[in-house]
């Protein structure tokens, strides 16, 4: 933990060396996801409700997913760019150091520019809260906190799988985008609108629905099943198979030699 804190400080200092570039990328990030927001906005100019979710409820859902994803991307960015770490031989250097590999990969990159997105998500979140008439109770507040933690963990798990696959393929695999960018892009709407099959996949195979749809139902008062509060915690369990897969991958690692 102390080591990670050190890494954190190094990355923080390095931003202050390149303020202009940091600012521009942050603004860029903001605009890119602003597009998605505009898409939602204009759809709801035309339609009042989708699957019984109103505009502000969708915004609440979208903002939570965006926060989850951005946090995961901010801290687990090292896994996202892992293919280059392998192909340029950086991983060999990591292996010879007497520290946990995962921690080193995590610390190799911290992407603070994602703040642009988080900021936007927060604005939508506040707007969503004000407009969606949720009567807040401790249970609901905890659910939202759990959702953010759980979602960050699930997305981090997916980044880890993505990286672990690189042990076998060297190259990053484009279809993994479905689970990262795709989940962010389509996670703007509650999973249920995509139909039963997608909902089932997102419940049992990749637990997106556990950190998005079910707890959201509870927060919005569409369901009174208090078990939903703890679904995101259940979703965190996803990290275990991801971690095992990573371990499995490391055993198969052959250096590229460069």
């Amino acid at each position, binding site marked *: 933990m102390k080591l990670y804190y050190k890494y954190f400080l190094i990355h923080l200092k390095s931003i202050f060396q390149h303020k*202009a*570039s940091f600012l*521009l*990328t942050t*603004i*860029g*990030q903001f*605009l*890119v996801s*602003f*597009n*998605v927001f*505009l*898409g939602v906005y*204009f*759809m709801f*100019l*035309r*339609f*009042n*409700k*989708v*699957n019984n979710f109103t505009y502000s409820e969708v915004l609440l859902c979208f903002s939570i997913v965006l926060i989850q994803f951005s946090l995961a991307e901010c801290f687990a960015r090292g896994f996202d760019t892992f293919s280059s770490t392998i192909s340029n031989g950086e991983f060999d250097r990591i292996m010879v150091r007497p520290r946990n590999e995962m921690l080193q990969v995590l610390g190799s990159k911290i992407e603070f520019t994602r703040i642009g997105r988080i900021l936007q998500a927060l604005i939508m979140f506040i707007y969503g809260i004000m407009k969606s008439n949720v009567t807040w109770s401790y249970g609901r507040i905890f659910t939202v906190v759990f959702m953010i933690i759980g979602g960050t963990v699930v997305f981090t798990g997916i980044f880890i799988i993505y990286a672990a696959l690189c042990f076998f393929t060297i*190259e990053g*695999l*484009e*279809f993994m*985008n*479905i689970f990262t960018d*795709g989940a962010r892009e*389509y996670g703007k*709407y509650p999973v249920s*609108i*995509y*139909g039963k099959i*997608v909902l089932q996949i997102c419940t049992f195979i990749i637990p997106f629905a556990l950190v998005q749809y079910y707890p959201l139902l509870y927060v919005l008062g569409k369901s009174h099943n208090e078990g939903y509060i703890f679904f995101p915690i259940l979703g965190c369990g996803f990290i275990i198979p991801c971690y095992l897969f990573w371990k499995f991958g490391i055993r198969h690692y052959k250096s590229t030699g460069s």
Partner: protein
Amino acid sequence: MNKYLSFFRLRFIYGFQYRAAALAGIMTQFTWGALEILMFKAFYNADAKAFPMTFSALVSYVWMQQAFLALFMTWILENEIFDIITNGNIAYELCRPVDVYNMWFTRSMANRLSKALLRSMPILLFAVFLPAPYGLRLPDNGKTFSWFLLTMVLGFLTVIAYCMLLYIINFYTISPMGIRMVSVAVVEFFSGAVIPLPFFPKGIREIFEILPFASMQNVPLRIYSGDISGTGLYRAAGLQIFWVILLIVAGKILMTKALKKVVVQGG
């Protein structure tokens, strides 16, 4: 002309080498298309009357968009060209007895075409055989289809001419990342990649349709799905021709200006 043709062939064959990447791309695009359609289906179920196109037109729109992603998406930019400009290899490009603008233009065309050819066929084949509301519909008649082909070529040229501007801006700025991200995001939104243009309110849509971005994927895709027909065809195609010419001329002027003052450090 001949040298550009052989250059085109070279790049085209080069693009064909990445078959595994293409397979992964096909799977990704197929899933994206499916999710996109399911999302619109939910909106359609919520209020069919507020839906601005017929549902099957929308389905065709989405499948064609996914199939020909490589032709129309401005975020498919060539990092090599950016590198050439920033690391000084532009000197080699200038040594060649060809026009740099035309060469990069053919290069982008070849790269995108080879990508599109590899990826589009499986997606189209699969989409045609999907059950009724979700499947890709063939256009009503041959005339629509030929209009679609014509406007697709024009849209394709518009996209490349726009991307050329992005490359050229790189001569003027040192850090292109910010401008690149912003301009790509702008195109996505105005060209109908986020949501198709008919979904915008009427007043806004009419403005959007005049902009060069609407000449990119919006026109051919909507002609294919039957959303633009009659006199709208002439108007749309005319606008496309106008924008292609304007963008290419602007690109050429900026390029000559940039090349006049380009300084390559030795080393």
